[in-house]
Structures are given as structure tokens and as C-alpha cells.
């Protein structure tokens, strides 16, 4: 698989290293000659010095035959333009952008970037998950159709405790996928009753996450 990585900072450096170790063909594009030299001193001739947002640079990098273009510079606007140019001019099948402002994830996907990676969001979610006894957790964002996987702990105070799933008025695009009770995980049916202490795993549209939170957790 031929990967073009744009941006030779720390993320680009280690990404290139990892991809090379996994046996992929990689070319790193870096604007700053000093940084580019550092990478070529370490990994050999896998570096092109230039501006990855420029069509000329992408052309000489062989973008037309690239399977993936990954933009990991420190600037959201540069990453967006790299991905859009790769897609529009070179018809690259898959573009991946690093996003610094979490709000840009949705925008980038609207603008045709296939995958976005937000370090800020990632760290936030890790912090959330490491706080004990949080009744409602965002587990992960699914890349299609703005879906998220969440986990909710049912308590004695929950309005939905001791109710069958069929009786609960769930938001439209929201599915309870699994219930973890003690050491067992079950796939619920409409007749399954939610009990205090249950961990409910649900898949929901991102914009309904808050509604689901209010429904499942009265105390959060």
C-alpha cells in the first residue's frame, strides 16, 4: 500500500516509522528542509521537501497512485487543503486528516475528508473514561453518519430502572446494543428489563447523545 504522509513533525515522524516497520511504502512530505533532513537521516530516501498543499508537490510525490494521503501538520487549514487537493486533483481513494479544533471534525467530513483524527477529543474521552463512576460515557465516534457508541450506568434513581426496553421511549436513531450485568453481557430484546447496576451500551446519532443521556441517567 502506498501512503503519502504530509507533515514531518512528531506525529508525521512516528507515523512514517510505524508504517515503514509494517512494510508499507511511505513518502513523507515536509516543508522545512531541516526537519526533512532529520527524517531522511533516520529513515533514508522516503522524504520529499515541499509544500504538500501544492498540487505540484503532490504530483511529484506520485499522488495519482497513492492509496492513502494522511495530513498531519499542526494546522487544520493545511490538513484540509492537502486532503481536498489529493481528492480533487489526484482522485486519491482515502484521505485522513489530523484535526486540532474538535469542532472541525464534522466540517472536514462534510468537505470530503474520509477520516478525521482529533487528538483533543481523544484525550478528552480518555479523561472521561478514567474518572470512576461516571454514569454516562462516550466510548467512541463511528466514522459513518455521525454515530457514537456510549455507555450508561443504570442507577436506582434512573427513570428507566425496572422498565422493559420496549416500554422506553428511546430517541429515533438510537439502539441499545448490549447490556453488561455482573459478569455477563446480553443482547437485549424488547422484553429485557433494565436493572440498577446495569451498564447499557448504546449506538446513537451524535446529536441525540444528550437526549439519551437525560433519558438513561436522571442524576447527570
Amino acid at each position, binding site marked *: 500500500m502506498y501512503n503519502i504522509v504530509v507533515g514531518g513533525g512528531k506525529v508525521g515522524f512516528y507515523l512514517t516509522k510505524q508504517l515503514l516497520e509494517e512494510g508499507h511504502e511511505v513518502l513523507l512530505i515536509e516543508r522545512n528542509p531541516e526537519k526533512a533532513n532529520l527524517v531522511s537521516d533516520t529513515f533514508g530516501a522516503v522524504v520529499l521537501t515541499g509544500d504538500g*498543499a*501544492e*498540487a*505540484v508537490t503532490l504530483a511529484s510525490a506520485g499522488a495519482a497512485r497513492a492509496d492513502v494521503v494522511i495530513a498531519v501538520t499542526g*494546522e*487544520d*487549514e*493545511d490538513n*484540509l*487543503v492537502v486532503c*481536498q*487537493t489529493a481528492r*480533487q*486533483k489526484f482522485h486519491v481513494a482515502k484521505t485522513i486528516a489530523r484535526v486540532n*479544533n474538535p*469542532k*472541525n471534525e464534522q*466540517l472536514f467530513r*462534510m*468537505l470530503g475528508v474520509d477520516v478525521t483524527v482529533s487528538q483533543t477529543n481523544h484525550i478528552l474521552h480518555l479523561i472521561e473514561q478514567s474518572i470512576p463512576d461516571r454514569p454516562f460515557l462516550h466510548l467512541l465516534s463511528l466514522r459513518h453518519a455521525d454515530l457514537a457508541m456510549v455507555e450508561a450506568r443504570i442507577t436506582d434513581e434512573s427513570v428507566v430502572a425496572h422498565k422493559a426496553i420496549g416500554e422506553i421511549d428511546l430517541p429515533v436513531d438510537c439502539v441499545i446494543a448490549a447490556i453488561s450485568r455482573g459478569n455477563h453481557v446480553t443482547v437485549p430484546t424488547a422484553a429485557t428489563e433494565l436493572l440498577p447496576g446495569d451498564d447499557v451500551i448504546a449506538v446513537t446519532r451524535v446529536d441525540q447523545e444528550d437526549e439519551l443521556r437525560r433519558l438513561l441517567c436522571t442524576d447527570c
Partner: protein
Amino acid sequence: MRVVVMGCGRVGARVASNLAHNGHDVAVVDTDPRAFRRLPPEFPGDTIIGTGIDEDVLRSAGIESATVFIAVTNGDNRNIMAAQVARMIFDVPEVICRIYDPVREDTYRRLGLTTVCPTTTVSAMILDHVIGAVPRRGLED
């Protein structure tokens, strides 16, 4: 008419003060507060410190009620991204974006942005003068 101008360089300041002078409701956004010195002292519009690629900054510049958005910072990519935010998220009817790189300008014009490329415009003007001058010399000879 509400106009949001991103980038208070020579062009941004000139466009903003001209529009304000003509009675329009203008907001100028720039990351560097010193850039606002380029505006005339009597400038009646708003000045907002921040980057125009941030939705929240654009909101505080009144983009939600804007008819026109003009992206004229020195960064092509910043202008391109802000212009797309204005168009896709805030549905601003008229979005104008300056792009120095002619190839990039071509790409985004095809994608539907209203673009201005100083490189091609200024080169064309200079060439016009030069080529316009050459035959005259040829005739004199």
C-alpha cells in the same frame, strides 16, 4: 448589509473601511490586534481578535446575519478553509476568497468558491504593459 472581513492587512483594511464608509455594517477579524491600526481612526465597524477558521470567532463577528464574507489573510489555506466554513456552515450568500497559488485557485473555483488570484491578475496586468510596449518599439525600429 453585514460584511465580515477576515484578515486586516492592506487589502482587508482597505476593503473594510471602504464598505463601512459606504454605510455597510462591517466586522474585521484578525489574529493580531496591531493589524487594526491599518484601519482609519474613524472606522465605525467592529474589530474581532481571533482566527476566522474558528466557527466561534466567526459567530462573534456576526457571520450568522452576514450577506458577504471576504477571506483575505496572507494564508491561502486559511482563506480556503474559512470560506468553506462561511459557505457550508453559515450559508453566507456571497463568499469571496483570495488565493495566491493559481493552481489552488483553479481547484477551488471549480469547487464553487468565488476566488480572486492576485498572482494571475497582477501578472496579466504587467504582461499587458510589457507586451503592449514591445510592438511599439518594433514599429519605431
